[in-house]
Every structure is written in C-alpha cells, then in structure tokens.
C-alpha cells in the first residue's frame, strides 16, 4: 500500500433528478492517505456525488473505480462495495433501538459475520478511538449530537473501510459540539485515513485537507491546495463564496 496509489477514481459522473442536472460531468482521483474537502453552495450536487460514489444512488453516466476495480459495471456486489466505504451522514442516522456499542457492532456481526465477542471487542476499541468508551451502553436518545456523530464515525471505522466519506458531518450540530467531532476527524486525518469530506468548516479544510474541490452547477469549478483556493480563487463563484464566509468570520470578531 504505497503512497500515491489511487484509491478512488471518478470519471465524468452525471446524474439528473426529474430532468434537473445535479451532476454534470464530475471527474477526480484520491490517492491513499489523502484528505480531500468538497465545498460549494447548497444544491451544487455535493451530497448526490457522495451517494453516487457508494451506489446509494445510481449515477446516470460515468464510471467509478475503487482500488482499481470498477464499481459502476453493474456486476459487482453492491453490498461488498459499500462495506469498503465508511459513510458518515449529516443527521448521524444511528439505529435508535441499539446502544452505542451495538450500533457499532451490529454490522460486524451480520455483515462481516464476526463472532459476537470479537465484534464487541472491536466495537469497544473503535468507541475508544472516538473517546466514547464510557458511553458505550447508552442509547442514541441519551447522547448529545456530538456524541451521536462520533458513534456514527466509530460505526463506519469498525468496518475497516479503505476510504471515509463525510457528508456535512457538523452541519446539524450546535456550535459548541462541532469541535469534538472535528477533533476526531483531524486525528483520523493525521492517521492518514483516506477521506472525502463535504464540509463548510474552512478551518478544518485549511488545517488538514490536501486539496479543496469547489463544486458549483454540478461540476468541480476549481481544485487545488486549500490556501490557494481560499486566498486566491480564480472562478467568480468561488471568490464570492469565500468572501461571504470570511465576512461571516470577521463579524464574529476574528
């Protein structure tokens, strides 16, 4: 697993909903260990892109390769593909009837067919990784938003994915809870866990992303190192976006 090996390759992805083009030719690659951040205005196709990449939604056109194997060829077992991709949702989507521990262990048991005790041990280890081992016995409704999202991250990590997708993981959180989730994500980024992150947390993008991809109108308008994209964007839409965000930060007294 040398650095520089392509984990995910996307070529000319298209998707329309009811005649409206949401993705209009998206192409990019991620190497092993890379962290790429996708930002852009709402409605620009970010979430749809992630969902097309793990086949929760079928793209209309285009091809996707995961570790060199094409996954859009219609023959591959979708459930096998999804096991290799950790997916973290904006709304956490924990299983409400299961404890934090069972949320993490259930797929290990029924999808990966691990023994109950082994699944439990691994789940505890993953909860520890997101600093939640003490809350393992709690149910989702007893956890804060930040804790729920960390359980969701542990649940994805436990499957030992080759890549993590985060779909606006902090957008549904109260401001004081965002930090604990970003800290976990930063830690994982430092461990060189390949990740594709849809987020508007510019601070996060600046400190851990190898590259920012800016999406608008269903395509990638601009991509490059975070500082270049944030400080010196070329595309008019990208300029406007970051100008508005920096104004927002300044108003907050930064």
């Amino acid at each position, binding site marked *: 697993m040398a650095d520089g090996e392509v984990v995910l390759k996307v070529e000319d992805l298209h998707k329309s909903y009811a005649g409206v083009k949401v993705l209009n030719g998206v192409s990019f690659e991620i190497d092993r260990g890379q962290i790429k951040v996708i930002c852009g205005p709402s409605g620009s196709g970010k979430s749809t892109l992630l969902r097309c990449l793990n086949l929760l939604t079928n793209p209309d056109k285009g091809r996707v390769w995961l570790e060199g194997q094409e996954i859009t060829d219609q023959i591959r077992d979708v459930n*096998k593909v999804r096991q290799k*991709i950790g997916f973290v949702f904006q709304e*956490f989507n924990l*299983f*409400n009837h299961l404890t934090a521990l069972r949320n993490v262990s*259930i*797929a290990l048991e029924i*999808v990966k067919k691990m023994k109950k005790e082994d699944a439990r041990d691994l789940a505890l280890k993953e909860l520890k990784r997101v600093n939640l081992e003490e809350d393992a016995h709690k149910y989702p409704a007893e956890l804060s938003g930040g804790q729920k999202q960390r359980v969701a991250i542990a649940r994805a990590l436990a499957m030992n994915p080759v890549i993590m997708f985060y779909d606006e993981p902090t957008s549904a959180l109260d401001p004081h809870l965002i930090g604990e989730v970003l800290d976990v994500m930063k830690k994982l980024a430092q461990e060189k866990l390949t990740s594709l992150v849809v987020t508007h947390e510019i601070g996060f993008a600046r400190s851990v992303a190898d590259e920012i991809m800016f999406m608008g109108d269903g395509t990638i308008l601009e991509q490059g190192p975070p500082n270049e994209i944030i400080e010196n964007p070329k595309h008019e839409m990208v300029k406007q976006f970051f100008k508005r965000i920096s104004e927002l930060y300044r108003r907050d007294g930064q």
Partner: protein
Amino acid sequence: MAIIFAVARVYGNKPTSLLATTIVGIFRGFPAIVTLFIIFFALPELGIFFSPFWSAVLGFVLVTGAYQSEYIRGAIQSIHLGQSLAAEALGMSKLQEIVHIILPQGIRAALPGISNEIIYLVLYSSLASYIGVEEMFAVARSFNSLQFRPLEIFLTAGLIYAAMATVCFAGFKMLENKYRIPGLEAAR
C-alpha cells in the same frame, strides 16, 4: 401474518404489495361475522371443510392480521429513512436491514395499537358462538335459555370478558415497558 403483510406492502415490488393490499382490504372491509360465515358455511360448497373451532381460528387470524398489519405498516413508515440509508451504507442487504433495524423498532412502536387489536380479538371471540363453537358466550346463551336470568348471566359473562381484556391490557403495558427504548420515550 400481520408482519409479513406489512413488510410486503412497504417493501414488496408492485405485484406483491398490490396483492397484500388487496387481501388486507378484503378482510378489513368484511364484517368479522361475515368472514366467519364464509369460511364455515360457504367454503364447504367449494369442497373446503373446517371444523367450527378451526373456522373461528382462521377467521380471526385473517381479520386481526389485516388490522394488525396496518398498525405495523404505519410504525415501519414512521422510522426515519436515514436509518435505512445507514444500514445500506454499512453493506447490509435489504432483508438484514428489515429484520435487524426496521422491524424491531416498528413492532415496538406498534405495540399500543397491537394491544388494542388483541383486546378486540378477545371480545370478538364471542362471535364464534354463531358458527357453533362452544365458547363462553355460547355457554351463557344456553344457560339463559334454561334459567332465563339474563341480567345475572350476561353481566357475569361481560365481566369475565372485561377481566380477560384487562389481563391483556396489563400484559401489553408490561411488554411496552420492557422494550421501551431508553431516552426515546419517558418511562411511565
């Protein structure tokens, strides 16, 4: 039966869900006594025979199953779609998702409705006397025709039904408490 029909209506393909919807529609549309009469009196014309007892059992299973499936269907559909997506994203098959994620929550949420229906079933059982099952109401009627003391006899029968319904009610209350999801609903 209720679970199968509810799942078929929510997750089945078009023909499956249409079939399930039709069957549920029929048995919810027919009065219970009509269903019983059809099974006991009409089916023999087609060469299908059931004893009074088994006719009653079959009839009540169909009627109550049709109603129960609606409670379960409603409960299943109230579960946030996000949990479905999460299950799929983890690589679960549709069946695994239904069995491990959707139904445990759906059945729990449907328990109050189910308990209501079970109590109805206890009370409906009196209808079985009309196709010759020797259940309590039939016994009460034959007592009455011998002794002609309707007040005491039918009041006693009513109270025994009420007692059975109360036992059911208490049993379901216990079930609901036992399977309450911590934090999601306040304990009572």
